[in-house]
């Protein structure tokens, strides 16, 4: 049986994330109630696993590290078709950078047992570091291909995948077990269906904390993170805006005139 782990992350809803801002006076984050959702590219990672499950005898584990609230996105993965959900949640894991996050996820994957394929979204919409997938591969000493846009051949343990370049691609041959980070070009994630949601209610989500992983507290969370945020600064714009007024037609005419006057059109 093909064992697949999909690493997923709960992120502040990207549609509303612009509401989180730095307070210009206190230089701290002004947090609004932005709901947590499944990271967009992790939907493609989940879909990649589901596509394999349609072709082969496969077992999918959705794995996430996050606050207790992140349970919702693990449940969503179960509803999409994952067989098992694991949430790594512990105060000790809080404040982790990409390195400590990858270490914690890799430790959990090692605990799950032998797996063939690990899928991650290429990046998260909040952190945007892209490091977690390749760093998991490093900790587990597995090969990794990042930015996978097509799985060309997956009938044996020797896969062929296309990885995206800015303009073009790399065709890679990789021996399983391996880690793949996926782009949105890889597939079209299917929407949740009602029957899936009902089925997911019967599946339980495993919660692992630091004791379950058997890792030292210095290796995870903020303590296990080589990088920290040292400063938060606001930026000031050097431009003074001229808001055009009038009817739609007038505004369009004015704008065109301004552009012509500036010599840029």
């Amino acid at each position, binding site marked *: 049986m093909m064992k697949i782990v999909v690493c997923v992350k709960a992120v502040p809803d990207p*549609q509303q994330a612009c509401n989180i801002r730095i307070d210009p006076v206190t230089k701290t984050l002004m947090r609004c109630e932005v709901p947590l959702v499944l990271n967009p590219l992790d939907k493609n990672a989940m879909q990649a696993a589901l596509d394999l499950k349609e072709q082969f005898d496969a077992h999918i584990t959705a794995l996430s590290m996050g606050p207790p609230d992140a349970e919702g996105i693990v449940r969503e993965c179960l509803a999409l078709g994952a067989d098992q959900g694991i949430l790594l949640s512990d105060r000790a894991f809080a404040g982790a950078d990409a390195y400590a996050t990858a270490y914690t996820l890799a430790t959990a994957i090692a605990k799950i047992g032998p797996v063939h394929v690990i899928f991650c979204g290429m990046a998260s919409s909040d952190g945007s570091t892209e490091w977690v997938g390749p760093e998991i591969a490093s900790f587990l000493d597995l090969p990794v291909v990042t930015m996978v846009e097509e799985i060309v051949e997956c009938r044996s343990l020797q896969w062929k995948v296309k990885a995206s370049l800015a303009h073009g691609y790399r065709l890679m041959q990789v021996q399983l077990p391996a880690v793949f980070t996926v782009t949105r070009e890889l597939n079209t994630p299917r929407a949740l269906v009602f029957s899936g949601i009902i089925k997911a209610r019967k599946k339980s989500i495993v919660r692992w904390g630091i004791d379950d992983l058997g890792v030292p507290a210095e290796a995870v969370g903020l303590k296990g993170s080589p990088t920290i945020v040292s*400063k938060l600064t606001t930026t000031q714009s050097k431009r003074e805006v001229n808001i055009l007024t009038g009817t739609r037609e007038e505004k369009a005419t004015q704008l065109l005139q301004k552009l012509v006057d500036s010599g840029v059109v």
Partner: protein
Amino acid sequence: MKNDYGPVWVIVEQRDCRIRSVSLQLMGQAQKLAAGLNTTVEAVLFGNLMEHHVQPLFAAGADRVFLGSNPQLAFYEPEIYVRAMVRLAQEHEPEIILLGSTAMGRELAPLVAARLQTGLTAHCIDLVLDENNILEQRIPAYGGLLSIICPQKRPQMATIAKGVFPIPEPDPNRSGEIIPVAVPEDMSPRLQTLEVVHEIPDEIPLESAAIVIAGGAGAGDPDGWRQIADLADALNAALGCTRPVVDEGWAPLESMIGQSGRMVSPELYIGVGLSGEQQHMVGITGAKVMVAINNDAKSPVFDQVDYGVVDDCREFVPVLIEKIKAYQKNQVTC
């Protein structure tokens, strides 16, 4: 006297034996950082038959070039590159390692960082030394800037997009030392590059375009997005976008402008249906004129442009296109 600080490294990228411009840009910044630390700048370059192509690195500020050269290294081969670079870094203990935010850099950097058990900051838009000579790695976030530091572990590692730093004025008289690196020629049994295909883009390249139109989530749907593309066509502009547009699938990742995407410096920038998130806005450097079209008068984008139009872009853009076409028609007949 022994230096307190190890060298500043740039992992250099080549394609068909030509040094890529982002590597030269990083070399310039590496030189500034090295001056502050009173240390040297070293380049690490892997390729095939590269011996006669390293002079641009010296001219851009490298004191030494670690050169791995054999037929297996012509293309980026992840497993071979990682193993060799990790060994080299363990031997020479650089203080800082910089890489371009390219397809290679963003895969190689975390693989090297994790094995060196150190931190890595993604897509920085500035790099400076703080009062303790620690590298402050600045990234845009939440309408401001976050400074990330790696206080204990070494090396301090960061990726930086093309266009963040200028290419330094080449000094043809500078020279340096080439240090050959023995890289094993055996391929990895578990991961190999079979083929690398570079396509020639048929659209106007964002980096060199005089006019850049960037669309955001405000496009609403594929039809709204097509209107923004039509505006770009009407102005003979390059078309870029924000991350939500990529997430929606209206435009490819290659056209994303910003911190983790492309850096542009056009004469004219028009942001359509976007809120002016820092991650996007840092991608526009030195535009002469900036315009925003957004239906929310309170949108932060209006603090960052010269001309603002508060209107639904789905209604406004078609009207603007009509005016532009009428104007262009007049220009031709007159």
